[in-house]
Each structure stands twice: as C-alpha cells, then as structure tokens.
C-alpha cells in the first residue's frame, strides 16, 4: 500500500527524474555541438539534480526495492547515453 501523499510525491519525482535526464542530454549535446561551456555546466547540474531525485526516490518513497534498483541502473544509462549517442553520430557523419 502507498499513502495518498506518497503516491503523488513518488510519481512527481519519477516525472522530474525523466525530465532531468532529458534536460541533461539536451544541454550536453548543445554544449558539445556549440562548444559552449555554460551549457555543459548546466548539463552537469541537471545530472546532479537527477542523482538527487534518484536518491530521494530510493530513500524516501515506498516503491518496491526492485523498482528502486532499476532506477539506479537507469541513472547510469542516462549518464552515458548522450555521450555515446553523440560520439556515434559524429563518427557516422564523418564517414
């Protein structure tokens, strides 16, 4: 069971988690493509915030442990997807 308050908080945190992952990817790509450090710094800030949200979900919500574990693994994936994707795209376009 999950309390009404915890329900809304958990789901809002999950939404914020994905949003921050997207913001990180977007700003990371913009920073690399336009060579602007401000974007890159903002990207890192978004990823740090995503880590904070993940920490909040893991420690303060009633989600089952397997979903929390999945979230931790997903956070690792969010960290590497933008750089891998961008590197692959650059290599693809260079050829």
């Amino acid at each position, binding site marked *: 069971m*999950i309390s*009404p308050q915890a329900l809304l908080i958990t789901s809002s945190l999950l*939404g914020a988690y994905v949003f921050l992952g997207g913001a990180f990817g977007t700003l990371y790509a913009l920073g690399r493509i336009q060579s602007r450090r401000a974007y890159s710094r903002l990207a890192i800030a978004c990823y740090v915030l995503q880590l904070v949200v993940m920490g909040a979900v893991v420690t303060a919500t009633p989600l089952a442990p397997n979903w929390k574990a999945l979230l931790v693994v997903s956070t690792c994936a969010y960290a590497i997807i*933008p750089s891998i994707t961008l590197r692959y795209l650059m290599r693809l376009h260079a050829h």
Partner: protein
Amino acid sequence: MASLSVTTRSQQLGLRYIFAAMVLMGILVVAGLLAAMQYVNPTFLFPILPFSIVKILHIDTMILFLLLAFIGAIYWLLPEEFGSDLVGIRVAEVLFWVLCAAIAVVAVVFIFVQYGSANEASLWLINQGRKYVEAPRWAALGIVAVLGCFVWNIVGTAIKTRRVSGVTWVLMLDLIPLFGLYLIAFPAVTNVSVDQFWWWWLVHFWVEATWEVLIGCIIALSLMHILQTKRSIVETWLYIEVALVLGTGVLGIGHHYFWIGSPKYWMGIGGFFSALEPLPLLGMVIHAIYDAGEHRMTTTNRPAFYWMLAEAFGNFIGGGMWGFMITLPQINLYAHGTQWTASHGHFAFWGAYGCGVICVMYLAILKKRGATTIGNTWKWAFGLLNGGLVGMVGALLVSGMAQTFYERAIGGSTFNAYITAQGTPWFIEGMYMRLFFGLVFAAGYGVLAWDLLTIGRRVQVPVAEIATQPGGAVARGTYE
C-alpha cells in the same frame, strides 16, 4: 536518392490522403471540444449526442487521422525512393474514395443511430464496441481492403523495380504486423480478460511498435529531403532506433496487462520494459539536436524542420516523462483510467505522431507548390497548437492527480469517491482549463489548415528563382 521532379499519381494520391487527414483532424478537434464541454457541463447536448458517442468520434478520428496521414506520407515519399510510380495506383485511387465514403457513413451511423441491440447485426452494422476500433465490421473490412492495397502498392513496386533500400525493407517488414494486427479487431470474445488481452495487441503493437517504426521510416525519408542527410546515416540510425524502440516497446505491452486479469508476472515485465522506454527516446532527442546544430537550423523547409524537432521533444516528454510517472505498477494501480492517463495519451500521441505527420504535410505541400516564400503563419500554427496541447495536458494532469488522490488513494475507488473527486476544485478547474486550452489548440488547427491550404500561393515566386533553390520542385517531366 533519385529525385522525381514531377508529381506522380502516387504523390497526388498521397496529397489527397494528407488533405483527408487534415479534415479528420478538424473533426477530431471539434469532437474533443464537445467532450471538453461535456466535462464542464454534463448535460450539454444530452441525450442528442451523449459523451460516449462524442468520445468515439474523438478517438476514432484520431486513429484515422494518423493512419491516413501515414498512408499519404508513404504514397508521397516512396515514388522517389523507388524511382518509379507505385504499381496498382489506380485501385488505390478508387479505394481512397471508397474509404472516405465509408468513414462518412460510419460517422453518420455513430451520430444518428449510436447503438443497437446486443447481437451480431449491431457488430456488423453499427458498432463493434471496442475502444479505438469501434467501426462496424463492414467498415473494418473496408479498412482491411485499403491496407491490403497499400501493402500491394509497396511490395509490388519493390518487386517490379528491384530497387529496395534499407528504409523500404524496414517499411515492408513493418507492414506485415501493421496489416495483420488489425485483424484482431474482428473476433467477438465474450471473456472480457481474454478480449482485453488481444485487443491490447492491436492497440499497443500499433501505437508503440508498428507505428513507431512507420513514423521512423517516414522521418528517415523526410530527413533526406529536409536536411539532405546522407542515406547511409539515416538508414544506420533507423536500424538502431527500430531495435531500441522494439526492444523496449514490445514487452512494454505488459503495462496494459496489470489490471485486466492477466498473470501477475506481467507486472514485473511491463514495469521493467516500460521504465526503459524513455531511453531510446532520449537518443532521438540527441539526434534531433545534433541535426539542428550540424545544419545551424538552416533548411529548405523550416516548418517541416521545426515540426520534426517538436516530434523528438514531444515524444520524449509526452511518452517518456508523462508515461514514466504512471507506469510502475504501484503508481499505476491508482492512476490508470483517470484524466492522468488521458493527459499522457494526449501528449504521447501528439509528440510521437501528430508533430511527425504535420512535418510531412509541410514537406509534401511545399514541394508540390515549389514554394520558397512561406511567410510566418506556420509559426502561429506551431505556437498555438503546441501551446494549446501543453496547456491541455497540464490541465488534465492536475485533474487526473486530483482523481487519483481523492477517488483512488483516499476513497478506495468506490462510486461515492468517484463522485466526490469529480466535485473537487482541482478537478473542476482542471476541466475548465482543458476547455480553454482546447480552444487555443482549435485556433491553432484553424491557422494550420489555412496555412497548408495557402502556403506557397499567397506570394508569387518567379519560376526561375524557384529553380535555383535547393529542394525547389520544378516540373520538367524527367526523373533525375
């Protein structure tokens, strides 16, 4: 890519489909506004046009709007891909008019007959009763005929021309489930769990698998037009995206099986794969940003390009973020079937498909008219439609959260709790805001329709000037 500089019959048919899709989008918007009015004032139009019928009109025209736009886009794009007009196009032209007539008849039956007795005759003539595929069987058979002809047009042309690219291979393979899954619309299964189980195969595998691949193929072909991206790049990326989307989307069907009487293991499978679904969408966002940066936002077709970018972001936010909020079983137990789900549905459909098909509409129409001066009207349509949509899904989210909180989590899903939740200020104000932003969206549709009808016609551009523009289509009657 071989470039046909004349408009072929297939492309003319494609444009007809695109305009028919635009008309259906108009009906979708009007029906949506009526439904929004009925949430605010439940007696509005009752019993002449009850909510149940308005909702059918809204969601069925949404499916048909997208399906017709997809078919139109493919008919428009493939002749250049094959370097030839499509085979069997005369039959397809006839079937187009048959389909339009059938849609009109079905709409008239829905509006004026509405329902019948619980017997086979009603299933054949009035309504099959399954959400999204309510069309009576005779009309569903017509859709099967149109889809069958569509498959024949493409596969037949591939066999005839012996010119099959990576994109057309993916497209042809995708047509098998696209066609085959629709056949699930027919059986009348009396066990509701079994019926729902297979019905989700049709709905989910169309929306989160075959349509994803279809729009991927359409966008891949469009990218070669809009940004002149190399074929090797779009094909490689298409393979990766298709693998990732199918890898997460196929077993993601489990999130529909949580509460319909399916075995419990679907909770783990559905939750796990649904949670992974935002990841490939993030890859699409990165790709869109890379393309925008690589080309410094310069393109021969700015409206199409902006709608393509909107698709990448809309898909991620609407499908990924909004979906992830409610996809884990512990949350979904309370949130499913509320306005929260409607919020996710609106955002995801718009992001994943709506923006993509409008992109192709601009691509086809601007090429057809050889227009290089496009004005600013498209920006108004872009702003009003996306602003209206975001406002609507925000309002639905607020109402849906109120329902989830008061009706499900506090009230335990009783009928009394349902009524209580409908009366809370959060729910009511959300419904009013949805109506307001629905009107903004409708205004955006009006501007879009006006722009698509007149773009390239409002300002006369000298033919010589058009010919010097990259991507400008000038009729010379030869294949380049």
